[in-house]
């Protein structure tokens, strides 16, 4: 399916500045050189536009292409590949590699992300220790896949020599690991325990398009601390969740 290169008015992204799923789409659009309009939304108070285009979940991000909504970041990334197949592609061409990228993307959202979130909402003591251990278990599985005999053995990025779908999915969200390490005073990504994951993450974060997409860590840390304050009942300020 071939489409003409979009004009700036063809693509509109409704998202939130601190939302890793929004970052995935922003990064993908940047990597593909696709121009787009961006509309900042409050994830806690979906606007009429969000509710109109995503009536089932009311969640972000929402990509509008000529007014038609595409939802869920991983679905959006595949949609971009398929709509502009002559541009830079995020998914590999081999069906087995594609299945692996999809499998680990699902792992990232279904297992890894919730375990990292659980650290954030944990209380000090055994609960936090268990939550941290769960993150380590999940990182161990990923680390193993990056090593000898694994699906991603010997690669610089999950996508090969260049960033691909799984890099975007895992990378946009992995910055929370560093943020929570600081905020919760825990060790999540020990370079000795997870050398490949650690090296990949550093490499990913140094890419130009990634640096242009991910907000500064100190801003994310400030946001995380504010959310934690709110969770602990520190403030009833509703606006603390967004800038």
């Amino acid at each position, binding site marked *: *399916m071939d489409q003409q290169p979009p004009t700036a008015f063809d693509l509109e992204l409704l998202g939130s500045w601190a939302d890793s799923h929004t970052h995935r789409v922003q990064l993908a659009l940047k990597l593909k050189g696709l121009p787009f309009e961006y509309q900042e939304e409050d994830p806690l108070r979906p606007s009429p536009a969000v509710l109109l285009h995503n009536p*089932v979940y009311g969640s972000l991000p929402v990509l509008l*292409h000529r007014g*038609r909504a*595409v*939802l*869920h970041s991983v*679905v*959006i990334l*595949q*949609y971009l590949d*398929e*709509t502009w197949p002559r541009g830079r592609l995020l998914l590999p061409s081999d*069906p*087995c590699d*594609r*299945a692996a990228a*999809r*499998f680990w993307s*699902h*792992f990232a959202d279904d297992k890894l992300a919730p375990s990292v979130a659980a650290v954030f909402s944990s209380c000090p003591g055994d609960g936090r220790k268990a939550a941290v251990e769960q993150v380590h278990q999940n990182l161990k*599985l990923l680390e193993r896949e990056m090593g000898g005999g694994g699906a991603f053995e010997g690669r610089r990025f999950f996508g090969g020599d260049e960033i691909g779908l799984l890099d975007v999915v895992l990378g946009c969200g992995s910055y929370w690991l560093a943020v929570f390490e600081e905020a919760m005073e825990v060790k999540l990504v020990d370079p000795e325990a997870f050398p490949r994951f650690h090296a990949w993450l550093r490499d990913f974060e140094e890419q130009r398009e990634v640096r242009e997409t991910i907000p500064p860590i100190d801003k994310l840390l400030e946001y995380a601390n504010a959310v934690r304050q709110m969770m602990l009942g520190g403030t009833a300020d509703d606006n603390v969740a967004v800038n």
Partner: protein
Amino acid sequence: MAEAVVLLDLWVSPFGQRCRIALAEKGVAYEYKEQDLDNKSPLLLQANPVHKKIPVLIHDGKPVCESLIIVQYIDEVWSDGAPLLPADPYARAQARFWGDFIDKKMERSCISNLHMNFQSLFRCELNANKSSAFCSFSMDQIYEYGTRLWKLKGEAHQEAKKEFIEILKVLEAELGDKKYFGGDAFGYVDIALVPFCPWFYTFETCGGFSVEAEAPKLVAWGKRCLERESVSKVFDDPVKVYEILKQVYGFE
């Protein structure tokens, strides 16, 4: 060659059935290997070390895990057969969205409704081998939702039922007057949902409501799907499913 394609599966699993339907739609010969989830085989543990779950498709020695990922893989590899996903990227995105919805909502609601009348998480009668395997199969979900549902009665029971009916209505609205979810062609979303249809009889019997009354188009769609050989071959008799679930979970 049939031996180049192997499916590790469990007879009653709706997720495994998705894969069997997809393989049948494409006319792919394969070897079916029934798994014992009480004693997981070395092959299963090697093929799916991350989750240790079925289904797993092994193609020329390489494993593919997770049912909807397997269905997409089958569509991409055996691309000369009738396509399971539509050609248009926007329609594909819609299909993926609804496949994900079914995975998130339907599965969770099915399991929570299943345990509406659950007597005891730990005292289920394990009579036949198949009951045992089914019980084990559901154990992952049980442990995920079980402690919350263990006390499910009264108001919470009504909530679970309400949630399930709501999901049916959303799917009914999405189907509309189309023959299948993707339009005229049977495909991905139909495959994702149809294996859950035999469970409807159990829910309406236990829950005291009628799926047909709440979602008549969905029921008609289910019957249309059943006319396809790929579906009828894997379709469990709803009464048989009810009897098994009744036996395993001990509800009246």
